[in-house]
C-alpha cells in the first residue's frame, strides 16, 4: 500500500497537466487519499518494506515503513491536506504542490540513498517554483542555486558511501562497517548537503527571502518540507551512521540558533521575522537530534511537530495580513479570531505555559541536563529570551497600536483552520501524549538501528 502514497499524487499531477482546471480538486483528493491510506495502517510497530519491482534489498530500491517514517509521513501529509483546504492560497500551484507532496513522501519513505537524492531534487525544484509565486523571482533563484550546490554535495556523499560499501541501501550501508576516515568524509558531505533544506547555519541565506516573499511558500515549506528534511537528518545521522558526525551538526546547530534568533529580533517584516525564528527552531531540533538517543530524538520531533503546527498558523495569518494591509498596526482589532490564533501560536512558539511549546521546551532542557550538557540549555534559554522580545513586540503592534482605515474581508476557512490548530496547541499542553506518543515512537525507531537493518534485509520478497 505504501507505494501508493507516492504513486497517487504523481499520477494525479500528470493527469492534471492535461486538464489544468482540475488541479485544485485533484490536489485535495490526493492529500485526502494519502491521509486515509496512512490511517488504515496506523503505527506499524515494526519494519515493513516495499521492494520496488520485487528486487530485494540491497539490490533494488525499497520503501521502508516503520514507526518513524509513518509518523513523519503523517505530519507531512496532514499539512498538505490542510493547505489543500485553502483554494485561495493554492491558486495555480496545484501541480507543483502535488509533485512536492509526492516527493516529500518519497523522501520520507525511501530506504535508498540515491533515491533520496532524486526526491530531494524534486523537492528543490518544486519548492523553487512555489517560492517564485508573487514575482519573488530573485529569492527563488538564490534558493535554486543553493539547492543545486547542496544537491551536488549530497550526491558526492552518496557516491562516497557507495564506493566504500558497494551498496546504496541505507540498511546495508549502516551495517557495512565503514572505516572511520570514510565515515568522516561521508558524514561531513551529508551535513553540508542536508544543510540547505534543514536550514543549518552557513547555508540558510535563502530562508528569509523565500519565506518572506509570498504567502504560499512559508505555509508549506516551513511545515511539511522542513519536517521531511529534518526527518532525513535523524534517519541518516541516527540510524545509518549511528551518531557519527554528530559533533559537527551540534556545533552548527548552536550557531544556527543564535544567529537565527538575533536576525529575527532585528527584522521589521512580519513574515521574515518568523522565517528566522523557523531557522532557529530547526537549530534546536538538529542539536537535539545530534544527541543520538531515542528519547532525545523523540523530544526533538515532538518539538518540531509543535513548532510546525504553530508556524502553520503564524504563516497563514501573517501571509493574509501582509498581502492585504499596507500598515499592520492594530489589524487584529478587525480580525479577532485570526488575532487570537496568532497570539496562541506565537506564545506556544516561545514556550509560555498553557501552550504546547512549553511542554516540548521544558522536556528538551531537562533531557539535556540529564545528559550533562549545559551549553545547549543555556543557549536555548538565551534564545527564548530573545523570542519573548520579538513575539511580544509583534503582538503589541498587531493588537494595540492605533488602527488604520484599511479593510479586508476575513477569510472564513483560513480563520477556522487557524483557530482549530490553535486549540490543538492548547490541548497538547494539557495532554502532551497526542504528539508526544507518536514522536517518542518515531525517535525510538530512528535510534534502533538493529531493528531497522533486520527488518529491511531479512525480507525475502517485498510485500504491498
Amino acid at each position, binding site marked *: 500500500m505504501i*507505494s501508493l502514497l507516492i*504513486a497517487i499524487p*504523481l*499520477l494525479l*499531477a*500528470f*493527469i*492534471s*497537466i*492535461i486538464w489544468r482546471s482540475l488541479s485544485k480538486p485533484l490536489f485535495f483528493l490526493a492529500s485526502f487519499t494519502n491521509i486515509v491510506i496512512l490511517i488504515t495502517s496506523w503505527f506499524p510497530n515494526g519494519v515493513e518494506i*516495499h521492494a*520496488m*519491482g*520485487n*528486487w*530485494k*534489498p*540491497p*539490490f*533494488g*530500491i525499497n520503501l521502508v515503513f516503520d514507526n518513524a517514517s509513518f509518523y513523519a509521513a503523517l505530519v507531512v501529509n496532514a499539512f498538505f491536506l490542510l493547505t489543500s483546504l485553502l483554494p485561495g492560497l493554492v491558486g*495555480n*500551484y496545484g*501541480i*507543483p504542490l502535488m*509533485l512536492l507532496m*509526492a*516527493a516529500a513522501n*518519497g523522501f520520507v519513505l525511501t530506504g535508498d540513498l*540515491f*533515491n533520496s537524492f*532524486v*526526491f530531494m*531534487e*524534486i523537492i528543490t*525544484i*518544486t519548492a523553487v*517554483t512555489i517560492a*517564485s509565486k508573487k514575482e519573488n*523571482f530573485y529569492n527563488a533563484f538564490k534558493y535554486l542555486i543553493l539547492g543545486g550546490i547542496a544537491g551536488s554535495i549530497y550526491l*558526492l556523499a552518496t557516491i*562516497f558511501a*557507495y*564506493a*566504500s560499501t*558497494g551498496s*546504496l541501501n541505507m540498511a*546495508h550501508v549502516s*551495517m*557495512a562497517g565503514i*572505516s572511520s*576516515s*570514510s565515515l*568522516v*568524509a561521508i558524514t*561531513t*558531505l551529508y551535513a553540508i548537503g542536508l544543510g540547505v533544506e534543514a536550514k543549518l547555519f552557513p547555508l540558510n541565506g535563502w530562508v528569509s527571502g523565500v519565506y518572506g516573499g509570498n504567502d504560499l511558500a512559508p505555509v508549506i515549506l516551513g511545515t511539511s518540507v522542513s519536517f521531511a528534511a529534518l526527518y532525513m537528518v535523524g534517519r541518516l545521522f541516527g540510524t545509518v551512521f549511528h551518531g557519527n558526525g554528530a559533533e559537527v551538526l551540534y556545533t552548527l546547530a548552536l550557531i544556527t540558533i543564535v544567529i537565527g534568533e538575533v536576525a529575527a529580533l532585528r527584522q521589521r517584516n512580519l513574515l521574515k521575522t518568523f522565517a528566522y525564528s523557523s531557522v532557529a527552531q530547526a537549530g534546536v531540533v538538529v542539536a537535539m537530534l545530534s544527541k543520538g538517543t531515542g528519547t532525545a530524538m523523540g523530544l526533538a520531533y515532538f518539538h518540531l511537530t509543535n513548532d510546525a503546527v504553530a508556524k502553520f498558523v503564524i504563516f497563514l495569518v501573517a501571509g493574509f495580513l501582509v498581502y492585504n494591509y499596507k500598515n499592520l498596526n492594530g489589524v487584529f482589532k478587525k480580525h479577532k479570531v485570526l488575532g487570537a490564533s496568532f497570539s496562541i501560536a506565537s506564545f506556544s512558539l516561545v514556550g509560555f505555559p498553557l501552550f504546547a511549546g512549553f511542554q516540548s521546551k521544558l522536556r528538551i532542557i531537562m533531557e539535556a541536563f540529564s545528559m550533562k550538557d549545559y551549553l545547549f540549555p543555556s543557549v536555548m534559554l538565551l534564545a527564548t529570551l530573545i523570542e519573548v522580545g520579538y513575539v511580544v513586540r509583534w503582538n503589541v503592534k498587531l493588537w494595540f497600536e492605533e488602527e488604520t482605515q484599511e479593510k479586508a474581508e476575513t477569510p472564513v476557512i483560513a480563520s477556522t483552520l487557524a483557530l482549530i490548530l490553535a486549540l490543538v496547541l492548547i490541548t497538547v499542553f494539557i495532554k502532551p501524549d497526542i504528539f508526544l506518543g507518536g514522536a517518542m515512537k518515531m525517535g525510538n525507531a530512528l535510534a534502533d538501528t538493529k531493528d531497522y537493518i533486520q527488518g529491511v*534485509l*531479512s525480507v525475502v520478497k*517485498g510485500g504491498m
Partner: protein
Amino acid sequence: MRRLYAILVAAGLIYMLFVFLGTLPLYGKVDLSNRVSAHFLAKDVNSVDVKKWVEGDKQVPSREKIYGRKGFEDESANVVTSIVVNYRSFDTLGEVTVLFASAVGIGLVLGGMKRMGYGRKPNFILRVSTGILLPLIIMFGIYIFVHGHLTPGGGFPGGTVIAAAVLLLYLSNEEFVANMKTSKSLEGSMGSLYVIFGLAGLATGGAFLFNFLPNGVVGSLFSAGVVPLVYMTIGLKVGSELSGVVAEIHEEREG
C-alpha cells in the same frame, strides 16, 4: 577582498575533497565483486542469498555466456539500461518527475502568450535543410529510444533529439508556434502511463514497477519485458516535455 575569500573557500573545499579521496579505492582499481553491480551484470539478483551476501560472502557467479541466451531475470543487453529501467526504475520515475516539475515550473514562471521573434529572416540554407533534416532527426530520436535496451542511449537522449528538431523549427521559421495543447496532453498521458505501468506491476506482481511482461533473448529487439515500453514512454514524454520547454522560452508576454 571578496576574491581572496572565495579563493580560500574554494581551496579549502578542494583540500577537503582531496583528503576524502584517500578513502576511495584508487582510480581503476575497483573490485566489482564487493558491489551490488556485480549481480546486475550477471543478471542473477533473485538467486543471491542476501543474508550471506551482506555479511561478506560474495557469491559471484561465473557465467560463460549471456548474449543470445534466454531465461534471465532481466534480458536487456545494455546493463546500464537494465539498471535504469528495471532494477532502479523508481529512480527513473523520479527523474522523469524532475523534468516534469521543471517544465511545469517554467510554464508558471514564464507564462507567456506571444512568440518571440529573432528579428531577422532565417537564411535560405537553414530553411531548406530543415525540411530535409527534420524527418531524419525525429526518426533518429525514435531509433535511439526504441533500441535503448540494446545499444547506448535510451529515452532521455532520444527525447532530447526530438526536442532539438522542435528547436530547429523555431529557428528556421519566424512564425512557427508549437501546439502546446498537444504537447501537454502527450506529456501528461505518457507520465500517467509510466505510473500506470508501475501500478500494473503492483497488481500483477505485488510490487510497484514490477516487470510483468515475459522476457526474451538477450540482444533481440523484442526482449526485456517492459523495458522497451517504458523507454518509449520516457522518450515520448521527455521529447514532448523538452519541446514544451523550448516553446516556452520562446514566448513573450504582450505589452
